[in-house]
């Protein structure tokens, strides 16, 4: 049992847990009311849309692809909801249209990646520019607000106790995403495709269908996050959620998901989500400026891979033996990846 715990601790998730505990300890000692429910809710609230998109991005990256268009999609769905609402439709209709647009464009991304066979980097780069452009087209230079109160309340006020709708949605989606990724057929196929789309194809798996499902979900969830963001902020501008994609991808990678696909766990990603939220919260409360926050997270990203690598090497040198193969290596090897990467398509 003790050995099992030790093994877990030496895994990627274990490392994240240790870092998280350090940050928590630091925050608790430095920030008087850090552990209050209010602050914890705040902490989630501020990054909740990113946290939601992180869940689906985990699937995208494990399947060996990337979706750069998520943040633009958040902006677009918010803009669509606002524009439809402004045009006189009731808010629920506006929300449905926004979600539909998200799913539709997600499907389109998936189609170009999975069926036409373009690189997802290129396709979603086009989406990154194009969706933002559509949002801009809809909202132009205005700020659209005046949403019904129930809608903004959903984003701002606690629904169950202090927990807002977004937090509840995140919690539910996190559970669903964990179960789907680790227990369902779709999750299994996500890993299979991420490891080798060829093996999947030679096993009769419809790679295209699976990828299209994942990209459609990515569009849909991003759209949902966009709508939730509109509710939280109470107003929509074309620049809503601009630049979120890098934050989202950073959290996923920090969670131990390999950018080359096939490797990663939802636990790791959830830990890294909580870790980053905590870190930002602590830094902001400590009065650290935005650039430095980003820099610290960047540094953490590098160190989290670098330190275990270096430690491993030192350990190696000390023992002059190969590392116990049961110890799972963190995602590494982009410099000299041992696994050949099948380019999509």
């Amino acid at each position: 049992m003790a050995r099992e715990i030790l093994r877990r601790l030496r895994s990627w998730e274990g490392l994240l847990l240790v870092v998280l505990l350090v940050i928590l300890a630091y925050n608790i000692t430095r920030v008087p009311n850090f552990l209050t429910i209010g602050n914890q809710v705040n902490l989630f609230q501020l990054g909740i849309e990113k946290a939601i998109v992180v869940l689906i991005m985990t699937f995208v990256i494990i399947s060996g692809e990337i979706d750069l268009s998520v943040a633009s999609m958040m902006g677009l769905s918010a803009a669509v909801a606002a524009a439809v609402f402004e045009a006189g439709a009731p808010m629920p209709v506006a929300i449905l249209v926004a979600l539909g647009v998200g799913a539709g464009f997600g499907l389109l991304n998936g189609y170009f990646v999975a069926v036409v066979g373009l690189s997802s980097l290129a396709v979603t780069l086009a989406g990154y520019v194009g969706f933002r452009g559509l949002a801009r087209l809809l909202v132009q230079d205005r700020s659209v607000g005046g949403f019904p109160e129930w809608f903004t309340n959903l984003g701002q006020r606690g629904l169950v106790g202090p927990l807002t709708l977004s937090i509840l949605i995140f919690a539910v989606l996190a559970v669903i995403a964990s179960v789907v990724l680790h227990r369902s057929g779709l999750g299994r196929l996500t890993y299979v495709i991420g490891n080798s789309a060829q093996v999947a194809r030679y096993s009769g798996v419809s790679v295209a269908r699976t990828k299209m499902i994942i990209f459609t979900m990515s569009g849909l969830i991003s759209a949902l996050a966009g709508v939730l963001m509109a509710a939280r902020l109470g107003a929509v501008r074309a620049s809503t959620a601009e630049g979120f994609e890098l934050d989202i991808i950073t959290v996923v990678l920090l969670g131990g998901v390999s950018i080359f696909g096939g490797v990663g766990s939802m636990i790791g990603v959830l830990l890294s989500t909580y870790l980053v939220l905590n870190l930002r919260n602590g830094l902001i409360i400590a009065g650290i400026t935005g650039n430095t926050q980003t820099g610290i997270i960047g540094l953490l990203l590098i160190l989290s891979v670098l330190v275990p690598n270096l430690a491993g090497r030192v350990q190696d040198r000390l023992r002059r033996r190969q590392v116990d193969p049961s110890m799972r290596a963190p995602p590494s090897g982009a410099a000299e990846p041992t696994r050949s990467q099948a380019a999509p398509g």
Partner: protein
Amino acid sequence: MGERGIGCVLVPTVLSWRPSEINTTDRVPTAGSWLPGFGTGDANGMIQPATERRLDDEVVATGEEFPVLKMEHVSKQFGATLALDDVSLALRRGEIHALLGENGAGKSTLIKIMTGIQTQDSGEIRIDGKPVRVTSSQDAQRLGVAAIYQEPMIFPDLSVAENIFIGHRNRGKLVDRRGMEREAAEVLARLDVTLDVGEPARGLTLAEQQTVEIAKAISLDVRVLIMDEPTASLSAHEVQQLFRIVHTLRQQGVAILFISHRMEEVFEIADRVTILRDGRWISTTPRAELTPGSAIRQMVGREVQELFRRSRREPGAVLLAVRGLCREGVFQDVSFDLRAGEVLGFAGLVGAGRTDMALALFGISPADAGEIELEGSRVTITNPRDAMALGIAYSTEDRRQLGLVMPLSIAANISLPSLPRFLSPSGMVRRAEERDAAEAFRERLSIRAPSVETPTSSLSGGNQQKVVISKWLETNPKVLILDEPTRGIDVGAKVEVHQLIDDLAARGMAIILISSDLPEVLAMSDRVLVMREGRQMAIFDHHEATQERVLSAAMGQFGDILPEGDGIDRIAAAEAITAIDRLVAGGRLVDGERQ
């Protein structure tokens, strides 16, 4: 658009040759005659002991009494496993030294230590008698030690010439493309090979890539060349070409460490044989003093039959009928019947279109003309799911890249093609059922693994192959296509796979066996279909199928000797076959080719 490719519209010049149409003299081959080198002995082989002696004498005369490379009491431990336990080995100048052992015997570790990829925990490496430290590939290169592997370490985006010279230092400050290509051509000429040296390596066949690797080693003035299963992916013809090169090298004084699972190759080519088992040195014996049987006994530590003999029985009704199947520019006009309980062997050179044909049947790259009938009704197959729904399964030749999701467990790999059956209504994987199914296969196929949750990456080649076959058996196929099922797996596992094929056929499964291991095809098949250049050359009944005939068909000599035309003249055909047989009898066909 210029001339059209060899389209299916062109006049089929293929001879549809069914066994019933030919009346030949019964030539049941003996085991010895299929296995080059076994029965024929030195007289027919290329090994000339005289040369060997002379080389050794020279060595003594120049006072170089030390072996080129000597490993003394080398041990290496990984975690709890002792991969090498006090192994000693000496390679002499101009010697072909075979290294035998089952998977996990420590061969790979030994090679990795020699080439500096890993470092021994204890023991010593000596080159020319002087102890050296080999801690990196560069060290090994400097010391004149090079290795080529089963999967060639080729740079697909670079040209052939660049592949040969990329590792060279001191080739001047600038890349002299012309000079390099000229020298590359020279090196290749030394191997008696012509390749377009400016062409990117991506387009080369495996055999050609291997040649490039050898050329790379030679260009570095290699003194010790390690060949790790170089023949595993080669056709018989290509193997002979490779051996010719190996002999050339040997005559130039290179020490060669040769590793192969094919016993007949080892006995054909090696001067001395070292056997490892469980990380320990068992013996080093001159080839002449060793028999295949004793070698296998030493490797396995028990008696094992060398080659499986099938139980022959009458096949059932026609299950799969293929008529005039085509894929433009790849293969054309393939027609055959496959009966329940029958094993149909596919023989031919690598690249003859056998795998493409299988891929068409499995829907990976669908045929663009021709008919497929399954159990009497016509079917269309446009993707693997169509094929699977019809009960066709295809076990790939490339289990690493196409067969297994390496990091996933045995259970997950086995359930993959039939995943929908393991899902609950809510789409969850029913883990218990999955495990049970995998467990059943683990027992039935004796997959050696701690549990079905073990990642397949940690299995040996043979056990990986069993997992690949299991995953297709789990789909309950009617037709099972096995593409190179025994490539690169050890003797014990090979026999088990053969046993399994026989067993499956006995239960009424129709099996297509694609193999470049000719003795295997001949031993296992009820009938043998030979392909060449994308065309079906012949189908032989198993009692007609001799190594020579199949080889001749595969290499196109039937086409030359047999009269053309629709109606095949039986007498002429029979005469032709006799002629071939006569030719073959004079010496080994492929050897004669270049002499």
